[in-house]
């Protein structure tokens, strides 16, 4: 497994602004993922963050809205841009240390007013 931390743990933001969420892992990992969990919903994959290349986005998510950086094998950021109340959600990063299991950070609870 891996120990994963996220910053901030929660934030309240005004619409039209942007928030950058940081994800730090205690060991080098190849695969990092960003998820969103909206109220009452399941986890939805936003993108896979690949070190040294552009992130791979899932259908319905675009780089302009959710730019991702992956500067090294232990760190990634997700920015939620030009926020609206619909972006209120829990944002989670995860890592895969093998082919199947993923390990998650504690999440960032975002409220957009």
């Amino acid at each position, binding site marked *: 497994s891996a120990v994963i931390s996220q910053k901030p743990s929660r934030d309240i933001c005004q619409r039209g602004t942007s928030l950058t969420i940081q994800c730090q892992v205690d060991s080098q990992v190849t695969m990092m993922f960003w998820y969103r969990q909206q109220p009452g919903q399941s*986890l*939805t994959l936003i993108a896979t963050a690949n070190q040294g290349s552009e992130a*791979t986005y899932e259908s319905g998510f675009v780089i302009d809205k959710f730019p991702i950086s992956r500067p090294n094998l232990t760190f990634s950021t997700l920015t939620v841009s030009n926020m609206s109340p619909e972006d209120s959600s829990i944002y989670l990063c995860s890592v895969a240390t093998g082919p199947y*299991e*993923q390990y998650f950070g504690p999440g960032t609870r975002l409220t957009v007013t």
Partner: protein
Amino acid sequence: DQQVKQNSPSLSVQEGRISILNCDYTNSMFDYFLWYKKYPAEGPTFLISISSIKDKNEDGRFTVFLNKSAKHLSLHIVPSQPGDSAVYFCAASGMTGNNRKLIWGLGTSLAVNP
């Protein structure tokens, strides 16, 4: 279209009894299944998994059963403890193009009553 379904949003059991959480899937290409537990204000925690080539995997109080023909899996917790009270997510793993992804159910909220 929900490829992984957890049809029971909630479940309540007495301490010491068995908890059975169910999960159904529709995509026969899924080849690995996982259960996660999630407490409020925390990220999901990996609990137990099973490969599609097996029908049972056991780890302490937790056992996962897989019925491939029915596209159904279940998580058994015995004996249940109050600390098991959490939301349990079923996830299925499969290849999409060159990438392996997890597809998640909506979760079942388990309450274990003392």
